[in-house]
């Protein structure tokens, strides 16, 4: 994973508990980093999601290398900080078709828009959902709650 160190010395590197590498890059260099990873053989996008840190969103793409001989494979988590409102970012789903639905889900849940996504719609929630993006921390469910059932004496 040194190739990233060499190419992007300005990015922030850190290690996760289980040994995965994490790289925090500015939004402009996201595409570059992803392409570098792709060229280095990290062709498998395990997951793509976002984290809501209340002041910013962080997009996480977990990339790994599929090498049958390699034991103890490590993955790279590419992270990008994004604003909470109106975040837009380059879509990796043309490079990694497997990230297609993950990006749709991230849009669905966090409201991050992906430029160049082939089918940019909501996925889990209905297409006509107006309630916002549920995994944001300030999301409030406005739908009526199911009332608690109350019964006083056994009736049967």
């Amino acid at each position: 994973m040194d190739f990233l160190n060499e190419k992007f010395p300005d990015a922030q590197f850190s290690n996760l508990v289980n040994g995965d590498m994490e790289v925090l890059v500015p939004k402009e260099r996201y595409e570059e980093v992803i392409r570098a990873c792709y060229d280095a053989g990290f062709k498998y996008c395990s997951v793509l999601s976002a984290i809501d840190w209340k002041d910013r969103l962080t997009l996480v793409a977990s990339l790994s290398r599929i090498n049958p001989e390699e034991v103890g494979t490590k993955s790279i988590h590419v992270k990008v900080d994004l604003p909470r409102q109106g975040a837009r970012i380059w879509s990796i789903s043309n490079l990694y078709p497997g990230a297609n639905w993950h990006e749709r889900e991230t849009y669905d849940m966090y409201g991050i828009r992906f430029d160049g996504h082939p089918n940019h719609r909501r996925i889990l929630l209905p297409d006509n959902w107006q309630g916002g993006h549920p995994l944001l921390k300030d999301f409030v469910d406005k739908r009526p709650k199911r009332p608690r059932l109350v019964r006083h004496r056994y009736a049967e």
Partner: protein
Amino acid sequence: MGPQHPSTHGVLRLMVKLDGETVTWCEPDIGYLHRCFEKLSEFKTYPQVIPFTDRTDYLAALLNEQAFVEATEKLFGDAIVVPERALYIRVLVAELQRIASHLMALGSNALDLGAVTPFLYCWRDREKMYSLFERITGGRLLYNYFRIGGLRNDLPEGIIGTPNDGEDKADKTIWGFINYFDSYVWPQWDALVTGNRIFQWRTQGVGVLTPENAVAYSTSGAVIRGSGIKWDLRKNLPYSIYDRFEFDIPVGKNGDCFDRWWVRQEEMRQSSRIVKQALAWLSENPGEVMGKVPRVLKPPKGEVYHRIEGARGEVSCYVISDGSPNPYKVKWRSPAFTHLQVVPHLTPGHKIADVIAILGSIDIVLGEVDR
């Protein structure tokens, strides 16, 4: 096609454009079973999330529990030491669960192809298995058995049995089931379905996924192995104690439905091998199954992405802790969700009956897709 359709394994809607009987375009429409698992997890304490993980992939509940529990234990680092015996029991029940899940996958795939009797045989054998699970964990389908730091309870007395237990003890002892499985169930499946020419006509050359596409579409589990890539997280990223067991990874050649089927069928046998090794260890080493854990679980700040090999593929769990008893974020990477993306890629050009075959062969569970 769908959402209410007999062979969509839940509530999946496939929008399909047909030219006669040939599919020209297909797109899955999911979300009918969405239960806000990830949002819900943010409001629950760490142990409270475990029963919810059962409900994502309800056919392989223990494997989901394993993913979440091990992720949380990794967050704690050295603060929680899981006893050896607990680890072995985890592997044991996880592999049993994998057999059960694969049985169901094969059975429902056979049912999709019109063979009803194998499906009923699958249920027959799975019932025996669930009696075992019920005796071990207390639940038949949703177990809530794993705990952070160990297990809820030890194996009950007499459940292991002896290596020469036969079919009559298949629902009483694990050895009985494994012997019954190896000597009866597996050969029966092999002869009844896998060897059947109609079945082979229906599955060979249908839904071919090339190795390149298998990687590009982020497939895992039997789907990527059916495409010929020897990729199993139990070997390639040894979590838990899988590096102590001896087993092989079956690989397919062509990446068609038949290969995926065959990989699953072989994998069941490998799982039974692992179960045998675990049983041998467990019958000799009694001990505690619950490590020392604080009463209120507050992992230190940090994040972890834990990947395990579920029954359907890579189940992974992205847990972020902010030091409070509730996880800050839980992201559930479910294999079925990722695999379902392949359907629009695989189906065009095939007959409508093949759509069902492909859908069955990638083995989705809608509870897991929609979470």
